């Protein structure tokens, strides 16, 4: 059963990321002149100042590293431990922090191939990209 997450802050630089997730897309901010991803999102490219464009990614990636939270601290997570927090590197080369879901926490391994999935949040306009182990 997918959990309903508390909504992310919907009025900051990452909003297009959450809106795309609600639509089933993994959108990440990209600077065309520099040919680089920009995460965490800063609105404009910190190197050249160009406005960032949001590009859809394939949603495929691998686990760079992870931890299993046994003792949750945020109230909405209290009933969900143990859960996996991981750094995921997308096939496009950009890294982000997310959850690996729908598996036993102990099933996650370093370098494991993952595929994006999307969870609902308490804000009907905003979704949350999470990852599942690929078969």
């Amino acid at each position, binding site marked *: 059963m997918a959990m309903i*997450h*508390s*909504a*992310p*802050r919907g009025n*900051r*630089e*990452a909003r297009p*990321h959450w809106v795309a997730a609600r639509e089933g897309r993994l959108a990440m901010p990209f600077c065309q002149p520099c040919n680089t991803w920009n*995460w*965490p*999102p800063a609105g404009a490219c910190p190197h050249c100042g160009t406005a960032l464009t949001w590009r859809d990614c394939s949603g495929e990636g691998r686990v*760079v*590293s*992870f*931890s*299993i*939270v*046994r*003792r*949750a*601290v*945020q*109230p*909405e*997570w209290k009933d*969900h431990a143990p*859960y996996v*927090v*991981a*750094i995921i590197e997308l096939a496009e080369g950009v*890294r*982000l*922090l*997310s*959850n690996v879901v729908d598996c036993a*926490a102990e099933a996650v391994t*370093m370098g494991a191939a993952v595929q994006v999935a999307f969870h609902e*949040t308490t804000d009907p306009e905003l979704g*949350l990209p*999470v990852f599942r182990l690929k078969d």
Partner: protein
Amino acid sequence: MTDSAIVGIAELPQGKMPGVTPMGLHSTLARMALADAGLHARDVDAIITLSPRSDPYLIHATALAEFMGIAPPVALTVEGGGAAPAVMTDMARMMIAGGRAKTVLVVSADMPLSVVSRNAYVNTLADAGPVHPDIERPYGPSVPSLFGICARAYMDQYGATDEDLAAAAMHDRRHAMAHPNAHMRQPMTLESYRATQMIADPLRLLDCTPVSDGGAAVVVTSQERARDLRQPLVKVLGAGFCAARLHLSAAASLTDSGAGPSLRDALAQAGRAAADIDLALVYDCFTIALLMNIEALGLAPPGGAGAAFRAGEFNADGRLPLNIHGGLLSHGYPGRAAGISNLVEAVVQLRGQAGDRQLKRVETTLTHGMGGVFATHGTLLLGKG
């Protein structure tokens, strides 16, 4: 920039301080440090504090001055994470060198154990600590899990095991047991370490610091004036800082703490070499932080800090005495004030006032502090006068 000295210090036993208020603790530490220097509160013309989580004010340093009944012209409250002790001391040096102040009182204290509840403090860290409020918080990372991610990457890269993590925890505990101000003083073995619960794999409870009431105060003045005061001269030789980013999501590496440039710059300013350092106090909010910081500072080879601990290289009688006060892991973790004890221990040892714990030879000390999850670093070099 080589003209300032630490002339007064104060630290109380870290741990639970029932019946004490945060402002009362700040004031007590301030007066103790001034008395240690042979100075008076009215001599203070600049005061630098951190904003304790347990007791926020609009301008905390000015609130402390008011509480103490003094009115120094300069009162600054800085935000520097665990690198703050180096930031505050360097600000004091610059004010002294620039003629802005003659006697700078630095107070860094917090009471997360008695005033805020331990759980409330840990929750606050997840919300207002190193977790990115937009792109990380929705995924529920605890602070230990962010360090756990680094620990897993470190173990994977170097073939390290929980014995390397435990070696750091046991080293700190063994030395804390001999320190009168240390919070955690029960013996720790590999078995008792492994018997504690997993908090955020691969980090167990004893890979994490305790939460303590505590902190310290330090008085900084010119070396010229210090020679007329009552304590043995302790010079501030150099300071260095570096910061690559704030959040783990922006980290280029999960296994390089990034502390190296802060020591390089401090050594250059001090005109010293790494080989001159004969005592190191390294920031260790988690065991993995201690291992990675030691290696980034060049005090052990990459992946080799755990083995160095096991070989006794960092013991009081080892190659390079390190965290002989017990570190944050066992000396105590006083919330925002974490890291100031590194500075106090260096001064006590340089003065030759450590009693049974006194090292035979201490001429140059390294005190390192870190903010965030390997985000910012501040390193100070102190030397005997």
